[in-house]
């Protein structure tokens, strides 16, 4: 069995209401992210897939209470770290890309300066050198005219371009070992989605990254991922290689999700 860079072990938690009642939301979640592989965490709304990922970075909502379990990153338990310690991990070793890239950026700073600031924070360099790195990162995610683009503000970027810039920030500026992408292509057009996914695969293969893709879209998973974790209602239902999930799904929910995603294909097969 290959090495896992991250291991979520028996992680459970609940939301605490204003009256102090606990509503269980994650139950005994366990999965491993193999080093160098691309793993998909798949599930529908409310499955707990994003909440688990946010917990990895210590970004879970304040009302969320962990009741048991641990999250091991290279053998180190992240859930017991002090805020100061987790900040050293966040970004530098594990970074995250969110669904809406334009909302994730600060609207009043240029895209280039945001990338450069993060570069200086993590690596410490002159402003000039940081900006050069920012432009280089934008070029590596195939943004045309990166020098000009770096001087623009987020609102001047299309959704697809903004997502490229976020991936440049999370993967190339931060240079993490683990990159978590939460629905990175939801809301983007299919032709743009295909290009963004190609970019993510490219970075994973060529930069020695471990990637975790959180998504509801099994189509994207079939083409890009090595491993799949299926979640529903706060539980992990099935964990297997992507090939096994698509060719021999074991869990009834996985089969249902697959059939629902294939609307047309399943019909064509029946005919």
């Amino acid at each position, binding site marked *: 069995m290959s090495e896992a860079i991250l291991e979520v072990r028996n992680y459970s938690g609940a939301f605490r209401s204003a009256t102090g009642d606990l509503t269980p939301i994650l139950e005994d979640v366990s999965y491993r992210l193999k080093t160098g592989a691309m793993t998909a965490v798949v599930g*529908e*709304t409310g499955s707990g897939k994003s909440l688990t990922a946010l917990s990895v970075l210590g970004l879970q909502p304040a009302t969320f209470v962990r009741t048991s379990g641990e999250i091991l990153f290279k053998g180190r338990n992240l859930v017991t770290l002090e805020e100061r310690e987790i900040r050293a991990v966040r970004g530098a070793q594990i970074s995250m890309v969110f669904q809406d890239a334009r909302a994730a950026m600060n609207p009043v700073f240029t895209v280039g300066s945001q990338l450069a600031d993060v570069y200086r924070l993590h690596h410490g360099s002159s402003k000039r050198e940081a900006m050069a790195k920012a432009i280089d990162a934008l070029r590596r995610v195939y943004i*045309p005219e990166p020098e000009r683009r770096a001087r623009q503000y987020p609102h001047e970027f*299309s*959704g*697809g*371009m903004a997502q490229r810039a976020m991936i440049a920030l999370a993967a190339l500026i931060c240079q993490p070992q683990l990159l978590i992408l939460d629905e990175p292509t939801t809301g983007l*057009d*299919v*032709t*743009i*989605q*295909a290009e963004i*996914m190609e970019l993510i695969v490219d970075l994973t293969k060529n930069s020695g990254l471990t990637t975790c893709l959180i998504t*509801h*879209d*099994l*189509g*994207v*998973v*079939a*083409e890009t991922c090595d491993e799949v974790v299926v979640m529903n209602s706060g539980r992990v239902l099935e964990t297997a290689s*992507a*090939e096994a999930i*698509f*060719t021999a799904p074991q869990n009834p929910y996985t089969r*249902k*999700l*697959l059939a*629902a*995603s*294939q*609307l*047309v*294909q399943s*019909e064509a097969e029946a005919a």
Partner: protein
Amino acid sequence: MTTVDYPILQARDLRKIFPVSGGRKLVAVDGVSFDLVPGKTLALVGESGSGKSTVARCLVRLVEPTSGKVWLDGMSIIELDPVALSKTYRRVQMVFQDPNASLNPRMTVREVVHEPLWLHLRMPKDQREARARRLMELVGLTYAHLDRYPHELSGGQRQRVGIARAIAVEPDIVILDEPTASLDVSVRGQILELLLDLQKKLNLAYLFISHDLQVVQHVAHRVAVMYLGGIVEVGPTAAVFGHPEHPYTRALLSAAPVAKWGAKRQRLRLAGEISSPIDPPDACRLVGRCPLEQPSCAKARPPLTEIGDEHSVACPVVTAGDRAVPSAA
């Protein structure tokens, strides 16, 4: 099936131009024509900015078209005064993408469904209630749901309420603007089945607007592919999906991921990003992105040309038959 095959609604050469700063013009819809037939679904497919939602809004004059004609059963909608126009709304109803935003949070499901019955039909209360109950059955909800508020319902249930409201006044045409885009995949299938079922029972004509190609292939009889305000390819669903001809259609179809192991697709790539709809030149809108581009493409906007059984393409390179890139299959 005994469907009448003449169109209930005809749109001809619809055009919508929005003025933008500096006296420039944003051409959102540029010469779009189509028919809607009872019992049949026409899908408008396209990416963001293609103008598909503007077309839908032009049909009912939620957006006033700049030019063009819309005939509902032979009656021109464009010339109607506001009072007469509101009467046509009984016959053309809409279902919106986000049921959270399109249902009033302060109204119970009963009030939501009763309202159009009163507005359009002046139906007395007991009849409204009887109709409301029948509608709940039709859309797969129960009488108990009538007393609920939208926030008490799941996303799928809310969309069922949106559909119930649309079909309450027995319209001929339902415009579905991305009706499943905000739903989970397992719920998506149920809503599509409901829509197909209602179409059969009520002989509805659907204009189905979507960017989800899988959904479109599942529900549509005909598909019109839009790019930057114009229809670039239109035809029977099987023809458009089976033998896409326009370079944009091929790029779009080949970009859609398939939830199947080992499904290989041959990508047809377009260069760059969608160009600006502001002050577009009189040329094919794909100029600069298209792998089949010829010098003549920049000289005039190609018209839709029939290439097969009711299958038309707006690409002179394809219709001339000398394609530079061989077809994928």
